[in-house]
């Protein structure tokens, strides 16, 4: 009975809906939320895809837009990347899908045989629409670098509005609906 309760309590956490008590939240706001303060916009639960040194793919953190720069905070409040606006070359925004594979696999494996499999499979297969935001910028040494993050669709729109306030145009990239092969 106790194990069952524990498992039921874990499901929302695995789905990314809650943070278990005691887990350190990144600075700036609640997980997955958008916090706008005077002079700063912070997006919570931003997934790193590429470009931040020392941060693995799909590790999440916070993306803060300040008056001068874009800052990515790795989980646990450590600053991992800062891009001043004057070094930004290009920003693109496109729609992407994310699948909760880890959550699905956990449900699949943790629940008793036969019960967790359908729910786990559903979670693994389910697609969630997110925005991919792509930055191309110059490093301190003048080299062209890039960074990609997955953020909520609402966060994508808010960040576009924020950047446009500072004169940075965000290109909307429309991906073809069905073109699985390009040769």
């Amino acid at each position, binding site marked *: 009975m106790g194990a069952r309760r524990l498992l039921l309590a874990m499901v929302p956490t695995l789905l990314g809906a809650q943070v278990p008590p005691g887990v350190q939240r990144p600075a700036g706001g609640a997980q997955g939320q958008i916090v706008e303060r005077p002079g700063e916009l912070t997006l919570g639960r931003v997934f790193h*895809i*590429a*470009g931040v*040194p020392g941060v693995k*793919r*799909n590790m999440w953190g916070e993306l803060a837009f300040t008056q001068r720069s874009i800052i990515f905070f790795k989980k646990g409040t450590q600053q991992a990347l800062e891009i001043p606006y004057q070094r930004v070359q290009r920003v*693109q925004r*496109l729609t*992407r899908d994310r*699948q909760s*594979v880890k959550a699905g*696999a956990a449900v699949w494996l943790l629940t008793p045989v036969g019960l967790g499999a359908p729910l786990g*499979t559903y979670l*693994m*297969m389910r*697609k969630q629409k997110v925005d*991919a935001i*792509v930055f*191309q910028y*110059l*490093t301190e*040494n*003048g*080299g*062209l*670098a*890039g*960074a*990609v993050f997955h953020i909520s669709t609402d966060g994508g729109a808010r960040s576009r509005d924020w950047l446009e306030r500072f004169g940075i145009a965000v290109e909307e*990239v429309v*991906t*073809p609906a069905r*073109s*699985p*092969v*390009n*040769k």
Partner: protein
Amino acid sequence: MRRRVLLCSVGLSIGLSTAAAGAERTFKNKYFNIEVIWFERAPGIDFPPDYLVATMEDIVAELQKTQTFKQVLRQGEKARIADAPTLRLTGVVTKYKKGSRRTRMFKRLVPWLAYGTPIGNTEITATIRFVDCATNAVVVERKMTGAIGKWAEGMAGGESIAATRTLAKNVAQLASERF
């Protein structure tokens, strides 16, 4: 008789492979730096910008990991020693197959339907060129592929964007073999 033929063929293959390895060692320790230029897309190829950025970042990271070069430079970056022999890595993405993670997962759940087939696999093919910066001569040119969809990549099928890392690893491996 059969044994002799076998021994001869083994000897011949060893000889050929060592000769080939000798030819590949020509550029060993010749270049100090490598400059990674952003890849281009071949006309008609709809390679998404997030995949392009991921490819470039993964290539830089993988080349740094190999420690083949003293410095891995990004496009436009200046080398610490200006006169040091430098290579330029360029590439053109010639094929991109989007693939589908859902299909790959489904393939694993029902293996008797599509075992070993490339259905749902993500593939990126690029023509890679290593160019000598001083002479502008192409030193090595190779068509390379990064793909996701092998059975070893687990039940979850592997993320499609991870194909960029596979491509980057192949490029870095080629660089460490040849330079």
